[in-house]
């Protein structure tokens, strides 16, 4: 089955992106396809290449990048939300791309299921 994921909150502050990540891993392990992960609202902050959590903590940004590389995921960051919050190509982590909100609507149309994670 084809899933699309919407993430509305940033890393560390809310658990939403953790839950989304573990959901994606489980879905991929079951052989489902993740059509796209769309980052909106403060969710765009998940793509900052400058995050540096304490060594004994999970690295939320890096594990998204790694999952994207392993499974060829399409991680899309909303351009309007990103500009408001200071995410640009220069601080965009590997595996993410910045694009328009149309990518969210398109994902909703093309995927069998859209699941939202937020606050």
């Amino acid at each position, binding site marked *: *089955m084809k899933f699309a994921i919407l993430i*509305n909150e940033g890393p560390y502050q809310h*658990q939403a992106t953790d839950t989304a990540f573990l*959901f994606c891993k*489980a879905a991929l392990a079951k052989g*489902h396809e993740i059509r796209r992960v769309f980052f909106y609202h403060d969710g765009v902050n998940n793509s900052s290449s400058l995050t540096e959590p304490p060594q004994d903590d999970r690295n939320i940004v890096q594990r998204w990048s790694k999952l994207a590389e392993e499974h060829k995921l399409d991680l899309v960051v909303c351009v309007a939300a990103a500009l408001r919050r200071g995410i640009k190509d220069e601080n965009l982590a590997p595996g993410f791309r910045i694009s328009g909100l149309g990518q969210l609507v398109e994902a909703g149309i093309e995927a069998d*299921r859209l*699941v939202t994670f*937020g606050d």
Partner: protein
Amino acid sequence: MLHIVNKSPLERNALESCLRVAQGGALLLTEDAVYAATRGNAAAEKITAAMAGMKVYVLGPDLDARGMTDRLIEGVTSVGYDGFVDLVAEYPTNQSWL
């Protein structure tokens, strides 16, 4: 449809709104919403009442994290992230009550 709630029932109105509007289907409690399905929580009776009309699930890893696994009320099913995926696949539509 599958209703997903991730907010504590004693802090926010998300669970209450969901239960007010939902017409059957299933309810999955995740993150801070898992407290709603624990014995002694003031919201637990809302969950018990809801079970008459819908199946109620809770995300087990979130219960564990909060040290509440042994307090899950009867009739609620604990699932892992794979069970979460199955629920989303099973119901044609889902809604996260943010």
